[in-house]
């Protein structure tokens, strides 16, 4: 009774689908979060009568075959790297990226990670850091008593220093972009790591060569749409119960067979 196992692959796939959807919903308010979706493909087929094989000595061929599929498999959970909505904030250190690109974050082990979550902070030494305290690369350090911080669309960071009347350039924020952003590896904490699939990062100033631009005092919200996720959840749940029904039907048939002998 192959149907039992085929339906089991369907149930497993839908279970994973619900996991992905629930993670999307859980991260609905996560700054810079990009939603994932589960991608399925059909598993292999067993050919009981192969299409195109001879059906007689006269060279007539079978126009259609008898192929029984073995179920479904998950190929991956690609991330949808579409733009999220902007949420205005009052913090001058919040930046949102409009378009392609990731902020570079230097991890404590000197590895560079990438993030779209631009809720930046200042640490005790005036350095620009993520909420986890990791340094932004290239490093930007504000002098003491700097006020009126502005971040331009092209990533130039200016501030007013005490005793001066014009803005002073403090540093330049840079972005990195990848050939295949869905190929980045998510490491949690809104951070991504470069992989062989994503390609090497290309780093440059915002707004140059197709790089996105920066928006100050805005945060990029998750690109999760509540309606889409809820309808996906309903579909997944129904698909799960239908596959479960197949298991029941197959079980019933087996029971009938067993009951034939008395």
């Amino acid at each position, binding site marked *: 009774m192959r149907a039992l196992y085929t339906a089991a692959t369907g149930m497993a796939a839908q279970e994973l689908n619900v996991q992905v959807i629930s993670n999307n919903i859980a991260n609905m308010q996560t700054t810079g979060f990009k939603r994932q979706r589960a*991608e399925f493909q059909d598993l292999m087929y067993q050919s009981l009568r192969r299409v195109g094989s001879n059906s007689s000595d006269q060279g007539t061929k079978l126009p259609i075959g008898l192929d029984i599929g073995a179920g479904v498999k998950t190929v991956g959970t690609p991330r949808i790297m579409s733009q999220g909505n902007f949420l205005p904030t009052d913090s001058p250190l919040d930046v949102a990226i409009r378009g392609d690109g990731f902020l570079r974050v230097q991890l404590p082990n000197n590895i560079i990670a990438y993030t779209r979550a631009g809720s930046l902070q200042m640490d005790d030494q005036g350095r620009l850091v993520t909420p986890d305290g990791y340094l932004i690369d290239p490093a930007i350090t504000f002098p003491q008593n700097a006020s009126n911080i502005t971040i331009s669309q092209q990533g130039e960071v200016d501030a007013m220093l005490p005793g001066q009347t014009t803005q002073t350039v403090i540093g330049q924020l840079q972005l990195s972009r990848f050939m295949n952003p869905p190929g980045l590896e998510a490491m949690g904490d809104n951070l991504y790591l470069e992989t062989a699939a994503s390609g090497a990062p290309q780093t440059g100033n915002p707004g140059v060569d197709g790089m996105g631009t920066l928006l100050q005092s805005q945060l990029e919200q998750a690109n999760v749409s509540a309606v889409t996720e809820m309808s996906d959840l309903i579909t997944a749940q129904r698909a799960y119960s239908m596959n479960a029904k197949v298991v029941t039907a197959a079980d019933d048939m087996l029971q009938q067979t067993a009951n034939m002998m008395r």
Partner: protein
Amino acid sequence: MDNALLVGLSRQVALQRQLDVIANNLANIDTNGFKGESVQFEEYLSSPARANAFQLKDQRVSFVQDRSTLADFSQGPLTQTGNALDIAIAGPGFLAVDTPTGERYTRNGALALNPQGELVTHEGYKVLGANGPIQFDQNDTNVVIARDGSISALNSNQTVDRGKVRLVNFADTQRLTKQGASLYSSGGQQAQATTATTYIVQGSIEKSNVQPVVEMSRMIEVSRAYTTLANLLTRTDDLRNSAINKLADTSSS
């Protein structure tokens, strides 16, 4: 007398296989570009008895046999994903992809870029354009795939042409063989260009064309038919049982 048992058995084997097909359809209810299948049955007549000169002709007994699985190549529903590299094919046609075992065809348009900037499926197989794989530059943004499959991108504020997706169709789609992983092999047929009615929708994906209601009712049908047959076989067994008991019940006194 064994005929009833054997005829019933032939149907039960066929029903089990039909349930396998239904299970596969339902398991792939969320598989992009999947095409549902149904089973076709045929009658199998047993050969007549060799001595055929009776008053009453020997009745030929007919069995059932599953002949083929027929794929339903109708259009699946499109869902919007908003992803520039998701494309759906509206109308008959397939994308050509380059796999290690040769050229294969798919209707699953969830595409991605590999690190070299080539357009690939989620399995990493290159999508073939009119002149081989489709190559993007590192600075390309705003990829647009037009209705006819031609691809353009924005590079340094200039629109550049990146080739055209090759859409193909076949004279007899039933001869395509499913290879799993949403791929079909041509089965020795020559790929033809699609007609003008087939076009590409960017930012959407074609879902599976399996209709859950149809599959569920087929499943009920299968399980009821199976129960009926199981009852028939039990009755036949009872019949034989009572025949043995009654006929053998000769008094020994």
